């Protein structure tokens, strides 16, 4: 059937983001800009200790400052929300600290004022008396040692079946243990020609979206509106309704464009605090973080990954054991999902007959860790790809040849039992290799400047189970409006969804109006995370557009006129209502197939699709200083059909550039007491324009996701996967030193070179 007004296909068109004009003129609408009448500003008093009992809070000096409306503590919060603990996986996080603080920067009290400067000045006058308690920072230590317990009792939220057994558990810091058992690892190790045993570490980093987190709660008669820079308006609504004991329809959550998210603005963050403050003050309250405060809110898990592999004489991996410890910080946030979802693929994209995985989410006294572009995948790829290079080197094999030999092929079962399908692993690997001219010899440099290169390949299982619902309306003139709760945060989702809808409806994508999420108006969507929107919401939107056409066909039949797709909707409506009036509504929903893993961590349906990303890096290293320069970086993904090549390009390179930060620049530096020393862009460097590789390329391989909308699947994260290990390998290839802990700084390379020369430097790092 072709019901099109315009013959031009929308899928695959290079089009500008729908909101791009507003972004270049400065008129783009962010929550950052929201100002409400009688709005109060909140400034948060934060814990100065990593673990301490609160003995007393003296608010009198702050309350006495002219212009201060109120100073709020947990006691005030509990009068409006009796059990103020929130979280998507565990109900473990108090809106304001109750009796105890569990990490540096935890909110303890809040000052409210009409003037943000007065609130800030007064917040410094709140005096909190603490009894400092012993703290635990290292994830392996916290998992295996119960001297310091971050939480006395575990409180899973009840929404995830694999966390239910943890309810009421005491005496542990482990908030989730995902295990996979596949084949007979022990026997395979006993028979192996070679055994490799390595431990790789990643550091704690932070998202720092340039629009810092902001939420504004506006109390009304028996309901509340929350304006928030959130990636998950639907979740905010149901979690606030739960905390208040209200119906979901009493809570309205509105988002606008997000000035970056990257996972920081997921689930529930400042919203519960803003709601409590608004209910206490009976006025709208704005809670807006500074850049420094974002470092205390949510971070990316530091990890310790011990990976042991058994390899036969031909270079085939016959068995692997993965032991991954995820440093979740003081509150679980979505960490247990990260631990499980990334646990699924911790063995790597290889065909391994015997595989055991143990993946632990661990509470510590550090700022909480959640999802950060990749949902934990970059941490596991770092380890399994670093080891792949070390194995290849030891066996004298080419790193690409080693990967080709071991690669999991479509049609073969992954260790979880799920058969690999529509995963362009080989396509991506081959494309990276050809882009890097891998078959040609490399100019290895001379003297003190040496060159090397490396390749990294990663894959990811999609987050499930999830639900997406979409609505499309056609008005009296036939123009179409798309109502979805997918959040546009720079990834181009509004445009991608308009393309999907327009392609079905025979319209141009630019002619579809996409409404910002508003839970009173736009239907439910689980969240904008994990590269799920293109696939999940895309399928729902496609179905809604098809439903709209079905409704138009029925209307045509009803009024006795021919069905012409969207072309004559206005005529049909005019015939029915006698004037330009009425609305035609199409709806669609999508729940991807998924089956929870069994006790051995296995399931025939662990993921609705596989995302694939690979990176090649060539570096130049100065052997005298450890300084290096990325000469070239090639990033390749399998995203199925690229819906909008113009955005696909920026998503691939943008993800890779962002991951360069975690690869060689970024690290949250804590001292022995858990104090953060670099919560500022002056000391915490994110990639700037001078950090770009000299030459950068990108590609999406020719592939189809058979179950995706028009063959598409997500790609927002895939460009990150292979970056870090490719960098470590390139440096090793250049100068023969191996960095096993991120970030790979010039200092780390210099130290390794000094050690290589037999002149090791003293360690001055006091990071816990």
């Amino acid at each position, binding site marked *: 059937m072709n019901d099109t007004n315009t013959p031009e296909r929308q899928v695959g068109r290079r089009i500008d983001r729908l909101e791009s004009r*507003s972004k*270049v*003129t*400065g008129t783009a609408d962010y929550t950052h800009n929201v100002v409400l009448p009688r709005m109060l500003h909140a400034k948060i008093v934060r814990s100065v200790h990593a673990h301490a009992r609160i003995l007393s809070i003296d608010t009198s000096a702050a309350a006495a400052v002219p212009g201060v409306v109120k100073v709020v503590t947990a006691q005030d919060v509990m009068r409006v929300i009796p059990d103020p603990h929130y979280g998507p996986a565990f109900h473990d996080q108090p809106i304001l600290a109750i009796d105890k603080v569990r990490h540096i920067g935890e909110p303890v009290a809040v000052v409210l004022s009409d003037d943000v400067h007065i609130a800030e000045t007064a917040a410094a006058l709140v005096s909190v008396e603490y009894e400092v308690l012993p703290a635990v920072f290292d994830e392996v230590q916290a998992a295996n040692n119960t001297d310091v317990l971050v939480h006395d009792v575990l409180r899973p939220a009840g929404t995830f079946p694999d966390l239910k057994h943890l309810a009421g558990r005491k005496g542990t810091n482990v908030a989730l243990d995902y295990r996979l058992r596949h084949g007979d690892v022990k026997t395979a190790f006993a028979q192996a020609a070679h055994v490799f045993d390595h431990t790789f570490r990643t550091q704690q980093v932070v998202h720092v979206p340039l629009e810092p987190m902001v939420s504004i709660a506006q109390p009304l008669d028996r309901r509340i509106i929350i304006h928030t820079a959130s990636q998950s308006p639907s979740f905010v609504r149901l979690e606030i309704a739960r905390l208040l004991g209200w119906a979901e329809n009493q809570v309205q959550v509105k988002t606008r464009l997000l*000035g*970056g998210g990257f996972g920081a603005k997921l689930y529930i963050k400042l919203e519960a605090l803003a709601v409590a403050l608004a209910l206490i003050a009976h006025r709208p309250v704005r809670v807006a973080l*500074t850049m420094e405060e974002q470092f205390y809110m949510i971070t990316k898990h530091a990890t310790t990954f011990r990976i042991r592999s058994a390899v036969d004489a031909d270079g085939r991996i016959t068995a692997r054991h993965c032991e991954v410890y995820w440093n979740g910080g003081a509150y679980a946030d979505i960490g247990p999902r990260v631990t499980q979802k990334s646990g699924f693929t911790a063995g790597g994209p290889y065909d391994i007959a015997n595989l055991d995985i143990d993946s632990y989410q661990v509470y510590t006294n550090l700022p909480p860790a959640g999802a950060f572009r990749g949902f934990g995948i970059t941490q596991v790829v770092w380890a399994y790809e670093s080891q792949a290079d070390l194995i290849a080197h030891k066996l004298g094999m080419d790193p690409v040849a080693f990967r080709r030999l071991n690669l999991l092929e479509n049609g073969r079962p992954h260790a979880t039992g799920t058969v690999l399908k529509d995963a362009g692993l080989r396509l991506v690997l081959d494309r990276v290799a050809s882009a890097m001219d891998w078959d040609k010899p490399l100019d290895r440099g001379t003297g003190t400047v040496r060159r090397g290169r490396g390749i990294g390949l990663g894959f990811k299982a999609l987050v499930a189970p999830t639900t997406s619902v979409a609505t499309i309306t056609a008005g009296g003139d036939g123009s179409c409006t798309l109502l979805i709760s997918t959040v546009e945060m720079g990834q181009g989702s509004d445009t991608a969804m308009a393309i999907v809808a327009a392609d079905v409806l025979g319209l141009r994508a630019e002619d579809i109006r996409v409404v910002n999420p508003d839970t009173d108006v736009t239907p439910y969507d689980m969240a904008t995370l994990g590269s799920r929107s293109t696939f999940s919401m895309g399928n729902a939107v496609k179905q809604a557009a098809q439903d709209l056409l079905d409704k138009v066909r029925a209307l045509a039949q009803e009024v006795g006129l021919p069905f012409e797709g969207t072309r004559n909707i206005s005529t049909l409506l005019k015939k029915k209502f006698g004037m330009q009036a009425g609305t035609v509504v199409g709806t669609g929903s999508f729940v991807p197939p998924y089956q929870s893993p069994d006790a051995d961590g296995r399931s025939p349906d662990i993921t609705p699709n596989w995302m694939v990303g690979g990176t090649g890096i060539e570096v130049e290293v100065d052997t005298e200083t450890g300084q290096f320069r990325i000469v070239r970086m090639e990033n390749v993904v399998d995203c199925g059909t690229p819906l909008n090549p113009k955005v696909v390009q920026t998503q691939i390179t943008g*993800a890779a550039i962002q991951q360069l930060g975690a690869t060689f620049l970024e690290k949250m530096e804590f001292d022995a007491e858990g104090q953060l020393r670099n919560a500022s862009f002056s000391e915490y460097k994110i990639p*700037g324009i001078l950090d*770009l590789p000299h030459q950068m390329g990108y590609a999406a391989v020719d592939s189809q996701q058979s179950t995706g909308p028009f063959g598409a699947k997500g790609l927002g994260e895939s460009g990150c996967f292979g970056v870090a290990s490719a960098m470590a390998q390139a440096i090793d290839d250049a100068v023969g030193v191996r960095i096993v802990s991120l970030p790979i700084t010039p200092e780390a390379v210099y130290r390794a070179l000094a050690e290589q020369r037999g002149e090791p430097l003293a360690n001055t790092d006091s990071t816990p």
Partner: protein
Amino acid sequence: MSTTSTLIQFRLNGEPVSRQVEPHHTLLELVRECGLHGARESCGQGLCGCCTIVVNGQAVTGCIYPAMHAEEAEVGTIEGLEQDGQLDPVQQAFMDAGALQCGFCTPGFILMARQLLQQNSEPSDHEIRHFLAGNLCRCGAYPEIIEAVKLAGQRMRAAA
């Protein structure tokens, strides 16, 4: 009203404005209170460029620039670039090159790129990178931003 506040007068995108300001108020707060939201507070330390505002032809970091210094100044923001519905060539080039993602940093980059192109209409890659080193983009749209600056330069030279 505090006794420390001062009435200042300045021109904002060509229009006369008078406002009461406090010594601790920043130029960024001032223009945002005037309802212009294209300059934004991000790092709050003058390190990211999201708050870029043009004062007497010179780009400044509005989040650390005292509002009182705007007295009698010509203050320009991103909102002042579009003329009669026509985008500035740099704005148009940023759209055409796809040089933005979340868009939060975009006005700062555009204003800095204009400064560069006013001084040097044909900057090299190196000169572009060097000039824009004080602006941060967490989405990593830098390759497209470099393309956009080159494209704008080409078009401006062709039109000159």
